[in-house]
Structures are given as structure tokens and as C-alpha cells.
């Protein structure tokens, strides 16, 4: 099986309300070109929305920009892979603290669910964060479908 990065795009987005929709639409269009099933695209879109909202609402970045890089790879046999990197130049955050909310799953806590939603909807998630900014790398694997 040969994996080739067939599609790539980079976006620099202003931190304005609803900008997350633009990012999700861009990734969705790329995934559709690769034939990814619609439910997988929807999951990816919701994860992207939460990642962009986290950057916009919590990063505290001075440049007020979200840097998005998306690559799409056809893996053959109807399989595809989308890699997404969402970067901000903010102050970083405590990943351990954010993940600790997972222990409260099933209870009604009204805010702070972004990371849990991202990890539930994506196949792989990794985060690098420090006082100069944060990059979240997300992977969605998909099979072709309607």
C-alpha cells in the first residue's frame, strides 16, 4: 500500500466569531475530494470547531491568528487520512489539568469540554504547548462512503 500526500492547504485565520466554520469547511472539502465518508467528515469538523474555539477563547495570543495546516492522503483501497495542525501563538495551557476533566465524564459540567470532544471524534490527537504557543495535531482516518 502506497501512501502519498495528495492534498495540502494552509490557512491563517483571524480570531473572530465563527471563524471555526471556515476551517471546518476547508477540511471537509479536502476530505470529500478524497472520498471520505460523510459521518467521518462531520466528526472531523466538530473536532476542528472545538480546536479553533479553544485557540480563540483561551490562547491569549497577541497576534489574534489561528494557523491551520491540513494534509490529505489517499491510503489506497478506499482508505484515506487527514492530518490537521492547529497552531496559536498564545500562552499555552496545562494539558494534564484539561484532561483531568475526563474523570467527570457523564456529569453535567457546562464548560471545558473541548479537548474531550476533540479526542472522541478524532483517531489520533497530540498536543505540544509551551508559553510561546500551542499546536494540536489531529488525525482522522476514513473509508470512502456516502
Amino acid at each position, binding site marked *: 500500500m502506497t501512501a502519498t500526500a495528495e492534498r495540502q492547504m494552509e490557512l*491563517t*485565520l*483571524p480570531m*473572530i*466569531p*465563527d*471563524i*471555526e*466554520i*471556515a476551517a*471546518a469547511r476547508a477540511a471537509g472539502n479536502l476530505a470529500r475530494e478524497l472520498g471520505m465518508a460523510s*459521518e467521518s467528515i*462531520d*466528526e472531523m*469538523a*466538530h473536532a476542528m*470547531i*472545538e480546536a479553533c*474555539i479553544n485557540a480563540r477563547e483561551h490562547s491569549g495570543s497577541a497576534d489574534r*491568528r489561528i494557523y491551520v495546516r491540513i494534509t490529505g492522503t489517499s491510503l489506497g483501497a478506499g482508505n484515506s487520512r487527514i492530518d490537521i495542525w492547529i497552531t496559536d501563538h498564545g500562552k499555552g495551557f496545562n494539558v494534564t489539568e484539561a484532561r483531568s476533566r475526563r474523570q467527570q*465524564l*457523564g*456529569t*453535567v*459540567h*457546562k*464548560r471545558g*469540554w*473541548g479537548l*474531550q*470532544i476533540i479526542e*472522541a*471524534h478524532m483517531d489520533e490527537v497530540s498536543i505540544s504547548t509551551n508559553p510561546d504557543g500551542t499546536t494540536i495535531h489531529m488525525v482522522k482516518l476514513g473509508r470512502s462512503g456516502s
Partner: protein
Amino acid sequence: MSPTAQEHEGRIMTDELRVAVDRRGTAGAVLYTKGYINNVGGEEIANRAYELMDGGVRTLLLNLKETKIVNSIGISILIEIIEKMIDQGGRIGFCSLTPVIHKTFQIMGLANYAAIFTDEETAVKELAL
């Protein structure tokens, strides 16, 4: 990147949420949503829901058939609506969710406090609306 026209306007173009209400008897109602449930959309739903509660509605069904995208801020507002309805001795149900929205509701625990139905016909029957 230089600021775009959209940035000057302060908001990207999206399908703003629309809410329609169908009263069912004196104590019931169905809310139909269309569009993105974000903070603004969630507040719109909350305003309509609270108006209905103030008017005596104690059984409320939210039909999300025309909503394809939600975010965690919007869902947090839906949870506040549920809490207020429970405080008033009422109940809330949701129907016609996309699989991804259903999954997101479960992640955030909303499904523990509100009934979720496949379609409106089933919901209306179960909630006696």
C-alpha cells in the same frame, strides 16, 4: 495575513440559527432549530425556551433535524435550559440528531438529563405532546 472584509465585519458568514415554535396544548411545545448552535444560537434557543417556560410549558421537545453543527458552548447553554426546566418540574427531550451531535451530547453528559429520540413522531408519543 491582512485583515479581510469578514474580519472588519467581526464575524464570519454562517447560517445563523433560526428557531420556530409549535405550541402543543397548554404545557407543551416543540422548538425547531435550523443552523449552527454556537453561543449566539444557544442564547436564542434559551430565550425562546424561557419564554415558553414562563408561559407554563413544562414539556419541551427540541427538534434538531435542520441543525448539522453544534459546539461545546452552545451545548453548555442547552444544559442550562435543561437544568432550569428540571428545577421547574418539567422535562426536555431532543430528537432528530445527527450521529455526531448525538455522540457529542453523550460526551458532555447531556444525554443523562434529557431524553433523546430518533425522530419527532417517537418523541411526541413518548413525551405525550
